[in-house]
Each structure stands twice: as C-alpha cells, then as structure tokens.
C-alpha cells in the first residue's frame, strides 16, 4: 500500500531531533561550551590562544575573557549559540562575569541532565529553579553592603573590586598599579559612569608597569607642517567639515566651460572660497583647529600662516571625546562666530611615548576625562591588557551607579547555595530536588576556581560550606594560600550588579534550553558560486 510508505513532511536536508535526542544535543552543546571556558575561571585560571581564520588568518590573540573567547569560536549547536549570545549580552550589559555566567548556565544544565535521567519533568525542574533564583537573589541582596555614604570606604571598595576583577587577568602581576589606574579614571568621572570619557591608548613597547594615567587628554595625531607645536591657553575649535575642496552638493551640477582661461578663473574662485572659509574659521579667534575630515595642503598652509595649529583626520570618537573634555561644540558651519562655544585647555604640547609622538591636552576644564596609556611587550599583551582594563572599568562604572557590593572568592556563591539548600529543606514536593541541584551548580563555581589552582577542591568546598552553615557569612577561598579565609579581611569584593546579572542571566538561559524538547533545522541555504568581485 502506498500509504504505508514513509511520508516526508520536511524538505530534504531539513532535520528534526526529538525528545531525548534533542535534549541530549542541547545538553552536550551547552556543557561543551561551559567546559571550554571553565579553565579560565578564577585567579589561577589559564588563558586561551585564539587563531583567526578567514581574512586575517593566522592572527593570534591571547585572552582570558569569556566573551572574547566565545565570540571567536564558531558554534553550530543551537543551545551553545544561546549561551554564546548570553555571554555577549553580559559583556554589553555589565562588562564582566562573562565566564562565570557561561559556566553557571552549563553547570545548571549538567545538573538538569541528571534530574531528567531520574524522570523528573523539565517543568518541575524549572519551577524549582525559579524558587531557587528568588531565594538566592534575596540572600545576595541581604548580605550586600553599601558604603556609598562614606567616601573613603567606598574608594576602598572600588579598589578591592578592581583588584578582584584584575586578579584573574594578565594584569594580576601589576594589579595594584592597574587597580589604582582604573579607580582613578572612574572616580574622575564623578558618578556619570560615562566610559566614553576614558580613553585607552595602546602602544606596544615598554612594560606593563609603564602604563600610566594621564590627567589630560592624549590625541594620537600630529599638527601640520610649520604650525606651532606648543600652544598655551589654547582655544580649540572642533569641527566636522570638509577642508579639501568645498564641493557644491546640489545634485546634478557639473562644470562645463569652453576655454582654458575659464578653468583658471574657476580654480581661482575655488581657492578664494577656501580662503574665505579659512578666514571665517579664523574669525572664531581660536588658536587650535581640529577637524574630523581631511585638511588639504592649501588651507593647512593658510592656517600655518595665521599661526594656528590645525589637526586633520581626528576620528569621530576622538572628536566627540575632545568636545566632551574641552567643553567645545562640534562645528560644521562658520557664519556665526559669536554662537560657537570654543573648547579650552591650558597647554597643548607634543609628548613622546615610546617612539611615537602624541599631542597632549593638559589642564582641561572638565576634569572628568582622562587617558590611560597601556604599554606592554607585545601587541597581544597590550590587547589583553586593554580588554582586562575595560572589564575593570565597566565593573567600576556599574558599581558607581549601583553602589552595593558583595564578597568574592566564591563567598557569595556559597552563601546563595546555602540559602537555597536551606529553602529546599523546607519545600515539599519534587521542586526541592531541583532546588538542591541549583545549589550544587552554584557551588561548582568555587569548586572550579579551586580546581584551576590545583587545590584539593573537595576538601576546600566542604570547609567553606561548613563555615557558612556555622554562620560565618564572609568565608571564601583564599587563593593565595589555598585555604578558607575571611573575604572581608582579605578585601576580596565584587560588584553586586555583576553577581546578580550572572545569576539571573544564567538561570534564564538554562531554563530556556531546558524547556526545549524538539529541534527542527531548516535545510541550509545553498551556497551560490561566487561570481568574482561584487
């Protein structure tokens, strides 16, 4: 009979994975991603080398940052994709904890796999997890500390957070130095939390120790020829205007002449026009002119004649930052000199960093901005230092906004785990099993940190748990000595926002993957032969 023939509903090459197989595939994918980044966790975590392929094949990156690693590995497994996306969001949202969030989600799924083997329904597990998240969040909030009213203590908190964040990165050797850099930079922002005002300049050469914070603003540009190299009491006009040939933008216009003489006339007119423009600019009474776009030789020469420092081709970020720092506005028309606010600074001079010459703007009126110059032996080191410092800055900025802090070193994870298992003991029904599983997953984070350092983690974690059960809520792992210690005394603190975000994002993503019982893949799009250039 024909009807007994298999009926294919989906297209060829479209795939469907059902129930157990679907679950298996998503667990395997998610756990693989977790295992991939697991070894980078904690102060004794290891780094990864990423070798790119494609256009810049062979380029090497060395990193410890979870989001960077996950962005670079191309994954095909749908569940793994969810985790990668989650870690990216964590990076965009709070900047740090990208590894922890991935590891926690994958540990949760590992526990879930075990529960599913015991024939517990995924929805029951989810119900338990939701309760567990609420309990953990409450526990975290209750133990968080807020020192925002005490400036000195708050600065100490910030220093501790910066130190904790940096300790797992390449900068850990110099964490004192960089923690100070980062805290100084963020404190200068005066609570605005706008990281744009902090500029990171990477210059390879020298050592990490030589990195420094410059109170002014550094611009990686040179003034034009014959122009002053040093300007005191600078009045800066920041512009975004074409200074090549001032084209006429009315659509469809073009020049049509019938003699050579007319061309010469037009050329003269064009030159005249440029001169007009320069004159207009000069009327602003500025002695420094910084443009986002090119400045051609002719106007450059005019500026030199007038003794004005002219800098071309400062990129958009540079211009915006400069406007922010010097308090000037970005100008594109020059007809109303009275209305334009000029930027000001006390001194512009050239400085040598390594073998590059940069322009330094010092004595800027808005003391908010600053520049951090990162030095290091190789490009990879400088890049990684940049990423680490960026993480630290993000965390600090987040802490300035939401001033609560919690203790690190696995202390807050253990605390949450203990709270969750206590709550599980009081919960009737199968959800309790899921809650216990949640607590176990939380405890995995300190376990991995201990494992990565080569300590006897089983011993350490049991001691840590015992300490928390006996009411010592500031106990955590002292990674220097390999023992349980008091995090308060050691000054290992983390930002409350980051921890909370890790908890919530990981639980959300794990729940999402756990809810799936069917994976349906469409047929992959056929690759069309490339028709050469496009």
């Amino acid at each position, binding site marked *: 009979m024909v009807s007994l023939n298999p009926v294919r509903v989906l297209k060829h090459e479209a795939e469907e994975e059902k129930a157990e197989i679907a679950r298996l595939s998503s667990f395997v994918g998610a756990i693989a991603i977790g295992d991939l980044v697991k070894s980078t966790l904690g102060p004794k975590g290891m780094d990864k080398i990423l070798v790119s392929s494609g256009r810049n094949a062979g380029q090497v990156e060395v990193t410890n940052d979870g989001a960077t690693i996950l962005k670079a590995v191309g994954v095909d497994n749908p569940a793994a994709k969810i985790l990668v996306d989650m870690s990216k969001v964590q990076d965009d949202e709070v900047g740090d904890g990208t590894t922890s969030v991935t590891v926690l989600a994958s540990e949760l799924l590992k526990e879930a796999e075990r529960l599913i083997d015991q024939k517990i329904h995924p929805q029951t597990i989810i119900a338990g997890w939701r309760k567990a998240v609420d309990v953990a969040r409450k526990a975290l909030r209750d133990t968080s500390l807020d020192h925002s009213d005490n400036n000195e203590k708050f600065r100490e908190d910030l220093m501790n957070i910066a130190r904790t964040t940096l300790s797992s990165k390449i900068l850990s050797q110099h964490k004192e130095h960089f923690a100070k850099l980062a805290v100084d930079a963020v404190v200068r922002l005066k609570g605005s939390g706008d*990281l744009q005002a902090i500029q990171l300049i990477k210059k390879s050469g020298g050592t990490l120790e030589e990195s420094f914070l410059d109170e002014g603003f550094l611009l990686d540009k040179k003034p034009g020829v014959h122009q002053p190299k040093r300007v005191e009491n600078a009045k800066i006009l920041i512009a975004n205007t074409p200074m090549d040939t001032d084209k006429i933008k009315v659509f469809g216009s073009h020049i049509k002449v019938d003699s050579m003489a007319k061309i010469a006339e*037009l050329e003269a007119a064009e030159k005249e026009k440029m001169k007009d423009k320069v004159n207009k600019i000069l009327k602003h009474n500025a002695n420094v002119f910084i443009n986002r776009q090119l400045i051609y030789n002719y106007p450059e020469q005019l500026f030199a004649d007038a003794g004005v420092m002219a800098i071309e081709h400062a990129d958009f970020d540079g211009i915006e930052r400069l406007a922010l720092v010097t308090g000037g506005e*970005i100008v594109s028309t020059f007809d109303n000199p009275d209305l334009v606010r000029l930027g000001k600074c006390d001194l512009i001079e050239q400085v040598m960093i390594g073998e590059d010459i940069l322009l330094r703007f010092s004595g800027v009126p808005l003391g908010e901005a600053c520049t951090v110059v990162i030095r290091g032996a190789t490009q990879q080191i400088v890049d990684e230092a940049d990423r680490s410092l960026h993480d630290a800055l993000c965390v600090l900025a987040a802490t300035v906004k939401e001033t609560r802090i919690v203790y690190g070193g696995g202390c807050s994870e253990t605390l949450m785990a203990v709270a969750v298992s206590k709550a599980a003991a009081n919960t009737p029904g199968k959800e309790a099993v899921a809650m216990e599983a949640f607590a176990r997953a939380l405890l995995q984070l300190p376990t991995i940190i201990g494992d990565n350092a080569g300590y006897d983690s089983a011993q350490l974690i049991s001691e840590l748990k015992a300490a928390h059960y006996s009411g010592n809520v500031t106990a955590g792992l002292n990674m220097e000595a390999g023992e349980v210690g008091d995090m308060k005394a050691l000054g290992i603190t983390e930002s409350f926002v980051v921890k909370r975000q890790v908890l919530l994002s990981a639980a959300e993503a794990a729940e999402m993957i756990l*809810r799936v*019982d069917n994976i349906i893949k469409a047929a992959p799009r056929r690759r069309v032969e490339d028709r050469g250039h496009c």
Partner: protein
Amino acid sequence: MSLLFDEYGLPFIVVRDQEQKQRLKGVDAVKSHILAARNVANILKSSLGPKGLDKIMVNSDGEVTVTNDGATILKMMDVRHQVAKLLVELSQSQDDEVGDGTTSVVVLAGALLEQAEALLDKGIHPVRIADGFSMAAEICCRHLETISDEVEVSSERKTALVEVAMTALGSKIVSRCHRQIATIAVDAVLAGIKMADLERKDVDFELIKVEGKVGGKMEETTLVKGVVVDKGFSHPQMSKELKNAKIAILTCPFEPPKPKTKNTLSIKSVEDYEKLHNYERKTFEDMIGHVKKSGANIVCCQWGFDDEANHMLLQSSLHAIRWVGGSEMELVAIASGGRIVPRFEELTREKLGSAGIIREIQFGTTKDSMIFIESCANSRAVTIFVRGGNKMIVEEGKRSIHDALCVTRNLVKDNRIVYGGGSAEISCAIKINAEADKIATLEQYAIRVFGDALESVPIALSENSGFPAITTLANVKTLQISTNNPHLGIDCLKRGTYDMKEQRVIETLIGKQQQIMLATQVVKMILKIDDVIANEI
C-alpha cells in the same frame, strides 16, 4: 499507473513526463495526507498547555529561535509536504484571526484526521465524513455559547482581562513574571481604547508597539506611555532630555536639494559658481528658518542630515532625530498629535506634535541608546518595552506579548468567556456524543468521532503534565456528567481542584469557536482531496 490506450491499442499520454511525477489516488491519497498531518500535529502536541515544552528552530542561515508559539514553529519549519503546508496556513490564519490557540488548532485538526482514518477503513465515504464533521462543529459552537459566561470588562474592572492574558501566557517562558506581563498587556490594550471608544470595542494594534532590547532582566519589562525609537539624537552634544517638546515631523531630508527630474546644471562661469554656492547655503538657512518659525524645538526626520545642517540645528538649539523608520514616524505622529510634513514650506504651528518629555537613554557598556517620547498629547499610542538576558528570550517575549494582546483585545470585543484546561472541549465532547445518537443518517459516526477528537486536547494537556492521561480524562468526564458542571478541566498545575472557574483559567469564546471552525474546515478540505500529481523532487 496512468497509462491509457486508444482504440487502436496505442498508448497515449495524459500526464507529461510521467516517470518524473508522483501520483497518488483515491483512499491512498487521503491516507497519506492524514499521515502527514498527524506527523505535524505530533510535533506540536508537546508544546500544549502550561507544562508544554519549547522548540528550537534553526533557520537556513543557522540562526536560532526558541519558541512555544504554534504558528511560529510551523512558519519556521521547512515544510515540503503539500498537506503539511495546509496545516501551516491553518495555524497562520488562526494567528491572524485570533492570535492565540495556534497550537491547539493544529492538534485538533490532527486528531480529527486520525479519527477520520478509522472511519475510512470502515468504508465510509470521505465526503460523508466531512459533512458529519461540519454538523458536529455547528453543534459544538452552539454548545460553547450556552456554557459561556459573560464577564464585565471596563478599565476599572480588569481582573477578567488580566486572567485571560495570564492563561495565554501560562505556557510561555515569560510565565516567570506572569502577572506583571499580563497586566502590562492589558494596560496597553486599555490605553488603546479610550473609555469613549469602548462602545466600538476594537483596538488598533498599530498603536501598540512591542520593542525589545537585550540586557537587563525580564522583570524590567515595562509599558511606556508613548513611543520608543531605536535611535539617538543626531548631534552628540544635544542635551539628553527635552521637556515640553514641540515636534516637527518631516519626511524631507536636511540636505541640498535633489530634484527628482533628471537635470544637468552646468556651471559656465565664476558667477554661476558663486551663485550656486550661495543658493546652497541659503537653502540650509531656509530649512532651519522654517522649522524655527513654526515654533518647534525638536525635529524628527525620516532622512539623513548633512553635517552642516546638523550643526546649524544644534546652534539654533533644536533637537533632532534622524533616520526614523516609516512606521515609527507614523506612530510618533499619532502619539504626539502632529502631522507628517513633506516640505519645509508647509510646516506650520498647527502641524506640530507635542510631548511632555523626550529622553535619550543609554544602555549597558556599549554606546546603544534609545529615545523615549513620553506623556504625549494622544495617550493611546503605547509601547511595550521588553528586556531579557539574551536575544532569544527577548524575541520569544515579544511573541508571547503579542498573543496576550490579541486575547485581551478579543475579550474586549466580545466579553463572553469559556473555561480553559480542556474543560470546554470535554463538555463539548459529552454534548456531541449525546447529540450523535439522535441523527439517523451515516453522519452519526462522523459526529461521534468528532467528540473523541475533541478529547485529544485535554489528553495532550494531561500527558504533558505527566498525569495518566486516559484515567485523568475519564475522571474529569464522569465528574462533569455527574455534577453537571461544564467548568471541570485538567488540573495541570496541581492546584488541587478540577474546577477551572475556581482556578481562573479562562479563554475567550471567539477564540475557541474559531479554533473548532478552522480545524474542521481544513480537515474537510483534506478529506476531499483524492488525487495528487506532484513533481518528483
């Protein structure tokens, strides 16, 4: 198979390229279709109900979507089979008509076809089965009306609305902040209909926009009384907040004039050159002048700005948003009560929109920002702003909120409800079984199995919740008959009572009726096909 011979015994061809075509005829065709349809229904079955599970869909570019919504699952499935395609359409039309119940409608259609197969084996003609089904569907719809309850719906009494939205959201991932999101959806719909408009009983979904942004947590999902535009102010130095905004909504670019007719403007002499240059500058000045004269303090433009124009706007202390999408322009216009103006010359004070406050809000550590236009003149336009830990959650959140909005609107339109948890289906099944015996013709059989098919929904519900499906159903059914209470259904969440009225699991009457009618129609259509000629793939 379809080779014919003429009177001389020579073969002639009816279908060209026979060997390349596939042909199915008669009962075989119907049976093969039924098999395919059941396949599709089985995929969806496990996502039914509050304990239903989700699916991961991977599209042809490898992008991942996680969803629980029947219509979305089917739409993204790479379906080849012709009958499966019909089911995709079915769930799509349920989505367009009612917005919710897209899964149940397919499950019901699958169950109907399964029952029809048994009747085909008995030798009943497919058309008679189809007729019986439509009679049964009629009975069902009438019965649903008798067991439906009326609820009071107004902006003060919104409990019923929230409950119906909660039922729709129960199976989704957003159920973690169940009541909050249900309330947001209801508030959005109620904002859409002003009290005066409650007579008309319809909501314009154009006015409700669902925007999402990854990051944050699901609890941060909010209802914005105004419009959210995924853009930033055009000049970085414009202040981030503007109060008492007068909005000029323009569809003309702040750029040098670009005549649409093809022209060649020739510059022949120096005078021409200078004239043109001056003209160009003057156009910019005129543009700003027109805006300034009308009294606007913010410009919302569909197109880009020239650098010079941008700076001139800043200098004349006008705020500006550029590259606003077409539909967003309309929303801004509706919300602010302004008119969309195509030319600078036509800008007048009356055509400006107004808003209490316009803010640019930055997110996270990247430079992402969005513009919130709030406290507008016309408060009917609202935006639901969804947050979540990753892209997939935000997308699924948006879809779920759409469902919730739809059911809420349906309840506003028609305030009759039936109870969920499979109770309505069970009650209909009982009714149909009673009615079937009264019918003298062959259709009796079809009607009877229609009742059995209806039970597939409660069976799937209890299967997904991990109960012994048949026992539970039998229990509830006998209880319904003995107590004569049509509100008894499957207790998916183990709250300890079968009574859905007590559990407040409610669905709209229109939604349920539509489900049954649509499923029956498609089943009838499939049963009537007896020949398929398809190209071999």
